């Protein structure tokens, strides 16, 4: 028993010596190289005080920056005249300052049938491929920073944000210029992990069902994002 304790103790001592050694060696080698440099550089008078402190060079650029926010989202999109569908997508945002951010979103959904197609039972308006609804947008967002108090002691940073952007929607065989605007709520569980609820309207001009009109496609999504 006593023997095994000694073994553990000596192992720990060896380990800690090994851990220290790196520093000690680094220090001695730096002292040696400094001495060598002094010998070579005889013109310069030796420093009066040589503290021999090994300084580790850590730069400002080593600071971990978390201005980018990557995320995945899922939810529902109501495609005007073509029912509501599930939508899934990815997002990437760059936080310009504490209030403004730039966000790119790309998402996919599959449109359903118009009520006419269902009721008449006739020929469908669109082929299966043309029912694929994909969109992207680039938005500028504004954060209203705040905190959310669940209880007295359970507090998270959060913000309400508004976005306005432009992009395109590919649907029914065509790609259309799309304006998007919306609002959301971001709950930051940690500095780098957040949950977002987002409501956004996507407006574009469409002539898929014959007449040309502005269609409004509302999407409500839940995202999880990570800052890096």
């Amino acid at each position, binding site marked *: 028993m006593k023997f095994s*304790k000694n073994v553990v*103790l000596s192992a*720990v*001592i060896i*380990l*800690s010596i090994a*851990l*220290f050694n790196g*520093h000690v060696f680094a220090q001695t080698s730096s002292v040696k190289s400094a001495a060598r440099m002094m010998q070579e550089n005889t013109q310069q008078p030796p420093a009066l005080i040589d503290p021999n402190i090994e*300084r580790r060079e*850590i*730069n*400002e650029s*080593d*600071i*971990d*920056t*978390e*201005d980018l926010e990557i995320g995945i989202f899922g939810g529902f999109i109501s495609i005007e005249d073509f029912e509501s569908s599930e939508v899934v997508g990815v997002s990437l945002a*760059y*936080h*310009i*300052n*504490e*209030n*403004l951010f*730039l966000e790119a979103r790309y998402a996919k959904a599959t449109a359903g049938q118009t009520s006419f197609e269902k009721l008449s039972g006739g020929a469908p308006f669109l082929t299966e491929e043309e029912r694929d609804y994909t969109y992207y947008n*680039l938005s*500028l967002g504004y*954060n209203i*920073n*705040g*905190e959310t108090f669940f209880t007295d002691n359970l507090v998270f*940073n959060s913000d309400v944000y508004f976005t306005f952007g*432009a*992009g*395109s929607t590919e649907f*029914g*065989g*065509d*790609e*259309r*210029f799309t304006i998007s605007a919306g609002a959301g709520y971001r709950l930051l569980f940690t*500095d780098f992990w957040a949950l977002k609820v987002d409501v956004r309207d996507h407006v574009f001009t469409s*002539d898929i069902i014959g007449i040309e009109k502005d269609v409004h496609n509302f999407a409500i999504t839940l995202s999880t994002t990570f*800052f890096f």
Partner: protein
Amino acid sequence: MKLNRHFLFVIIIASAFFSFSVKADDLVVSIVEPYVDFRTGPASEYPIFHVAEQGESITILKKKTGWYKAITNKGQEGWVSAEQLGKTLKPNGEQLYVPTGSFEDYTNRTFEFSAFGGILESVTAMSVATAWNVTGNLVVEGTYTQALGDFSENTLWSIRLQHHTFPEWKVSPYLTIGAGGINTRPRSNLVQSGDEVRNSDFYEVGAGLRYYFARNMVIKFEYRNIIALTDRDDQERIEEFKLGFSVFF
């Protein structure tokens, strides 16, 4: 004797951990101004819950926009503004450099990302661009534009060179010259009428004006004249006006 051995054990373990903690790559700065405010979140709206005093050392953990998360020796963790942190000193006695997105930081930028909205021959167009600042005057840029009209869908890409004659001006003009490609696809309801997808190369010349607007942000207005080298007898001339903004790194 038994107690002594335990004491020794604790000291060895603690010293081993100490050498670990020293190895971690954290930047420690000392406060030279009277105080530094610690906020609960990375924005000026968040309340100040702690004040670190002159002479104290704080460890910088991470950065989010213009805010730095720091921890005091007593374990208080909070967010410090770039302005206040910029007045602290590094272990070697130098002042800590913190980018604040100022105009000076803009002139020293390496990369720039821009987004534009505009009109390309009466069609709404959206563009994105990534630029690399080679010298203060010369900038290499790659652009991608999508213009979705009633009759066709157009995508354009180009590689171009910008010349900023007076980069030190807050409102500064620049000239561009470049080459690229254009892809035109007719709307699906026009495919039947005989139109088809066309690809052409083009040359472009243009001019722009940039304005350092706010922290980390620049507003740009641009005009470009595109000469498309089509397969037909006539070369096609396309004009584009666009307004947008950039962020820089």
